């Protein structure tokens, strides 16, 4: 069995790397196809044609695409992502700071929201169709359906402006220690938790309900096990695949999709960084950030697949 697991996992990792390569090519082609011109967007409305021509030449936009792809890929593998066209900053350096911030925020939000969602999901199943189930459903549905920025404003006005418990923005300064950082991201974490909770909670509920009618659950119930025990240790393991997939989707969102929350709380993460550079057509940065986002998805999806396989003994031993 352990051999099989190792084989499966290594297969998936190899596949993941191939996917990443394919994604890098797609991202490269995509960035070449983006409408608009980096020189024009850097210099903006006040650009004269001479200034534009000068900048274009300086940025080396005149070389053939294929050779640019390979030299980019070669450098990227060695960890050299080049410098930003717009402000000449080292991309690896700016990116690692931003990525660190993003991962920190995502991790904190995940630590709060995933257990909470699963516990709420289990509770909803346990008290199915009774008032706790309905309460949990209504509240989580309401929070998920309110646009993120409204949640952000409301939390900000309550916590920062009215109560003055926390600073209204989550600006991170280098001299901050761990506690300061946690304090800085407290409000975004609350908002992000509201945003991702419902999806994971409802999938937990639905997936467990789906297996609750199976014969073995009845057996467990007949054995006289407590209702919660049946749900948590007999039904849930067999419902893990859809739950893991939804958790991974939400983790991916927490890493690549929090632009709005970043903007509202002025948190220096990856989302805004990518949007800024896309709108300036700063191709090297867009490629580097795109590659990281692609890697995040591929790692998460691969992990979800592996967990799903491991969780289902019948899948591990295909006939």
């Amino acid at each position, binding site marked *: 069995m352990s051999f099989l697991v190792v084989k499966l996992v290594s297969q998936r990792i190899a596949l993941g790397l191939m996917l990443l390569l394919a994604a890098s090519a797609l991202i490269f082609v995509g960035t070449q196809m983006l*409408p*608009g*011109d980096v020189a*024009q*967007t*850097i*210099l*903006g*409305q*006040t*650009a*004269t*044609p*001479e*200034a*534009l021509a*000068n*900048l274009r030449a*300086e940025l080396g936009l005149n070389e053939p695409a294929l050779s640019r792809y390979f030299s980019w890929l070669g450098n990227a593998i060695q960890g050299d992502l080049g410098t*930003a066209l*717009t*402000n*000449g*900053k080292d991309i690896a350096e*700016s990116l690692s700071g*931003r990525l660190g911030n993003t991962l920190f925020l995502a991790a904190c939000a995940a630590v709060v929201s995933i257990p909470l969602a699963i516990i709420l999901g289990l509770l909803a199943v346990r008290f199915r169709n009774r008032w706790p189930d309905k309460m949990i459903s209504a509240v989580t549905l309401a929070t998920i359906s309110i646009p993120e*920025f409204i949640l*952000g*404003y409301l939390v*900000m*006005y309550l916590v*920062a*402006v009215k109560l*003055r418990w926390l*600073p*209204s*923005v989550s*600006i991170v*300064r*280098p001299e901050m220690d761990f506690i300061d950082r946690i304090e800085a991201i407290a409000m975004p974490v609350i908002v992000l938790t509201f945003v991702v909770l419902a999806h994971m909670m409802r999938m937990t509920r639905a997936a467990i309900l789906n297996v609750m009618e199976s014969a073995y659950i009845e057996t467990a119930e007949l054995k006289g096990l407590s209702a919660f025990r049946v749900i948590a240790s007999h039904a849930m393991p067999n419902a893990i695949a859809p739950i893991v997939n939804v958790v991974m989707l939400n983790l991916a969102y927490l890493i690549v999709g929090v632009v709005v929350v970043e*903007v*509202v*709380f*002025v948190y*220096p993460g990856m989302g*805004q*960084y990518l949007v*800024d*550079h*896309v*709108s*300036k*057509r*700063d191709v090297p*940065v867009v490629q580097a950030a795109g590659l990281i986002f692609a890697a995040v998805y591929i790692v998460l999806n691969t992990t979800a697949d592996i967990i799903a396989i491991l969780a289902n003994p019948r899948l591990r031993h295909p006939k």
Partner: protein
Amino acid sequence: MSKMKSQPSRRAFLGYASALGIAAALGPVSMAEAAAKKGGTFVMALKGGESTNTLDPALSLSHVTYQALRAYSETLLNVTEDGGLEYRLAESVEPANGGQTWHFKIRSGVKFHNGQELTAMDVLKTMERHSNEDSKSGALGIMKGIESMSVDGDIFTVNLTTPNSDLPYLMTDYHLAIQPNGGFDDPAAGIGTGPYKVTANEPGVRYSFEKFADYWDDSRGHYDAHEILVINDDTSRAAALQSGQVHAVNLVSPKTAKLFARAPHIKIETTDGKGHYIFVMHTDTAPFDNKDLRLALKYAINREEMVDKVLAGYGSVGNDSPINAAYPLFDDTIEQRQFDLDKAREHYAKSGHDGSPIVLHVSDAAFAGALDAAALFQQSAKAAGIPLELKREPADGYWSEVWNKKPFCASYWGGRPVQDQMWSVGYLSTADWNDTNFNSPEFDAMLLEARAELDEAKRRETYGKMGRLVREEGGLINPMFNQFIDGMQQDVTGWVSHPNGNLMNGFIASKTWFE
């Protein structure tokens, strides 16, 4: 503060003739410094910064880099609140050769943040970097008329191809911040002669500064430290001020300004500026090549309603010209165009337009509230029987893909210190940013004539004629001039509104103090 500086009136500075006399009256002589308290950390939250920004003055474009430049660097001269000039890194200016040659005496005893002393050579190099053939500077356009430059001791001399009585005004452009060796070594290093020294530069996030101990002018830079936070979201920026996290914010949203100012510790300062929120038509592209159609659209826009609803009253109506009373030599006898549906219908019928939808390209990237303004325009045009169709464009890439490319779109101009510059960059037939494709030999001739005109009254008259011509023939629909709305804590003292830019034309950190 600077308001009380002993300066000649605006009038005395406008004409070329009086520019001869600049040297006598100007200087950083202040009377109110005694009142200014020193110390504290001044924190601003600003809209208009991206993680792509650089401190290179040549590439500065956003509100945030503009304010950062004002904090760490200086130009040769500045425009004062009343439209005159004040000396900064230049100690005096002398025109010669009928305004074709200009001598700038460079101030002595000024230090850069790296300890180097400012020389006339640094000035020359700076101007070279902004005007040589490799330049990608935002100031390249205004440097075009320069034929040669030279240095003799502490005198920096500019020779122009044609006389220009406004050259000292051009030198106030914020891109032309003086850098050591002109910034050739490291343009984005953030080293200048300004009152605050850059200590942190995180584009799109924050900039921090400390007071530069060797700053030459005691009347400025009262704070010990200064910080700029980039907060692009309007509500978050307001919250930062309301929660006391920052001392000042720019671009307060007009609709909520009154609600926002209810908090007792906050005040709102409004400034009549030169910026205008506009719709531009390419006068050489059908159907906008038809003067009657252009006039029909100009009559079909309800300017008062726009000022009321889009600007919440924080602005004034436009008159289809880029010039308003905030400019020197403004001709106030030009008749205000009124909202007139009958005339709109009449011109529309006369234009013979086939009734197909007239597409207006719009995005809130053009100006805040552009979509709202376009929706209002669409409704009032509909009342005149003009079929206006709105096309929402991506905010992303608006200035490169839509503006100056689509024949009818929303746009914004921030204005320029003097009329000559505004007309030259936006309406001269050969101008790069002639966004109405306006081509009038008569207009071009008048512009050149006014530039070399010595007599102030005659210049005013010519500018008036040009304004009328653009209003009548041009492709500009100018419904409104916006006010700058800045918000700050009550204890920020020394505020003086400046028509050329928000937050005291960028000098709020230099000129205010905590009471």
